[in-house]
């Protein structure tokens, strides 16, 4: 296989007494979608937040294109081409679409003022790729539907030529039609060679979209493999019990409360 775009090796993260992520590793290749699965509290969000710069790793290493990198904050991550679409979407509800797409990375005029027309122009361009029907450019995003808000969140990533997109439950708040729209979008991004990590609870989506699946439980790695190597029942078993496809327990997963 080609050189991985991202390698996260033996990552640990604690919050006080809670070991949120314990020795988790994951690789991502260009044009690949990896579905990250696990129960609520399994540590999925915490794990990917260390790639997106929201948290820093306690120990472990992150390599991009084979080079070790330090991701200390969201700006570091963005400079490496890593964009994140959060579960909560993380939009400023009171700002309009262009302001949200460029939030934190505004286009300025030569004398340092916000260049609103330029940002709106770019916003129209990138939204056209995602949602050609979209017209509400002057509304605060609180007036948009769930799917439209999702497009704005994704447009934030596209506008800055992301190479790696992290999606934390991208379809959790959406209706069936909008979910389909996001699915189409993910397929399109994949074709452009973008690597995607997708956290989702919807097994159907995960099997539909991902090339590989990684399962976590209690902050630990359970199993990683090609989507074609497994099926929904097996994956569900791994999510719930931490059992490997062959029926044995993954090392370190079985705890007294599970037994």
């Amino acid at each position, binding site marked *: 296989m080609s050189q991985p775009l991202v390698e996260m090796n033996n990552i640990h993260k604690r919050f006080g007494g809670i070991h949120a992520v314990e020795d988790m590793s994951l690789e991502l290749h260009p044009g690949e979608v990896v579905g990250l699965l696990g129960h609520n509290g399994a540590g999925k969000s915490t794990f990917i937040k260390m790639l997106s*710069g929201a948290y820093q790793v306690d120990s472990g290493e992150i390599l991009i294109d084979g080079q070790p990198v330090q991701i200390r904050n*969201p700006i570091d991550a963005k400079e490496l081409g890593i964009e994140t679409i959060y579960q909560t979407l993380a939009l*400023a509800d009171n*700002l309009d679409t262009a302001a949200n797409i460029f*939030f934190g990375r505004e286009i300025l005029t030569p004398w340092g003022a916000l*260049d609103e*027309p330029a940002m*709106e122009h770019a916003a129209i361009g990138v939204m056209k790729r995602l949602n050609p029907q979209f017209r509400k450019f002057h509304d605060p995003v609180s007036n948009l539907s769930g799917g439209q808000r999702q497009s704005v969140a994704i447009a934030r990533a596209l506008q800055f030529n992301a190479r790696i997109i992290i999606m934390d439950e991208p379809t959790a708040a959406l209706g069936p039609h909008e979910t389909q729209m996001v699915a189409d979008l993910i397929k399109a991004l994949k074709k452009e060679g973008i690597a995607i990590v997708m956290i989702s609870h919807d097994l159907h989506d995960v099997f539909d979209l991902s090339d590989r699946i990684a399962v976590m439980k209690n902050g630990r790695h359970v199993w990683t493999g090609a989507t074609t190597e497994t099926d929904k029942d097996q994956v569900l078993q791994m999510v719930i019990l931490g059992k490997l496809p062959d029926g044995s327990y993954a090392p370190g997963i079985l705890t007294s409360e599970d037994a």
Partner: protein
Amino acid sequence: MERTAAERPVSVGERLRQVSQSVQMDTRLLAMIGAVVAIWAFFEIASGGIFLSPRNLWNLSVQTSVTALLATGMVLIIVSRNIDLSIGSLLAFLGILGGFVQTEVLPLEGTHSWWISILVMIGAGALAGGMQGWLIARFAIPAFVVTLGGLMFWRGAGWLFTQGRTVTPLDTTYSVFGGGSIGESWSWVVGATGFALLALLTAWKRQRRKALGFQVKPASVELAIVAAVGALIAAFVATMNGYDFPRTEDGRGIPVPVLILIVVAAVMIYVANMTRFGRYIYGYGGNPEAAQLAGVNTRRVVITSFALIGALTAIGAVISTARLNAAPLSIGNLLELQVIAAAVIGGTSLSGGTGTILGALIGALLMQSLQNGMVLLGVQSAPQQMIMAGVLIFAVWFDVIYQKRRV
């Protein structure tokens, strides 16, 4: 699609909304301007033609200046989910500090005393505000608590400077900032300059949008708006020039405190709408987490906003003490509440994220108009306070209804 929408019969409210949208003014702002006009008309009739005399309007504009000036800063504080209760006390402290510098540190009536003391005040104001902002941003102490502390602290600190003595008299050049005015010709120059800047900005925006292939408003509409603003500016200058110096034909022109307010308001509107800092204030107010995840240095934004209102408080202190030609300890009492009320009446939501500087300016004007008018009609100060309270609550109630109907 837009065609059918236009052809459908529409209600009056809907049509009003369309008109206001086409001139890019929100309905709430128009409603407030309507309220000010109604209040002015009422007092004009009730006072038998005194209220709208150049003399009274000149005084009204001076009375509004300090509250309005501080309200421009308070909007940004409240929009970013904070509050500042310390400004009244800080104003007293800074006034006393300025008076102290003028009379005790520098020679009284020295050539440079006035501007050195003003610089000291602005520097100290920004520092004091910045320190409060630092406590809030760095240690996550609620702004309400930190600035409530400020409210108690700064007046006490002012007392230490002078042991409670009122510093007076102040420098004569300095006192121009309180009650001076710039004369008829300069007033026209200021008006024309302001108009030219506005016209240039409008032209730049139009040209920029056109260059990017956007639709622009019809030239006639744009020209009409610019002309209307020009007429307002001219009416303002003419009114200020209409109040003559005693026993002369010379108009006073724009009062210095009002000139300061105009400049500060213009700068603040620019900061709020056209700079990154302003964008981050609004974005942070809308969703603090989103701002953090977008890589915004939210701590710096909060600290800067408090340093800014501290500096504005210093300018307010200059105007207030210069007007009195003294720096008493009691100055600025309850000013914070008046400023917050102006911002809230002007449409700033205490839950953060929404509010405009223009709205707060009109809010300040509305409150001061009521107060001024009631004084003209001989209303006692106790009922005055009660009526103002009613207005404040009515304005917020109106907002609640308005926000509900909009979604």
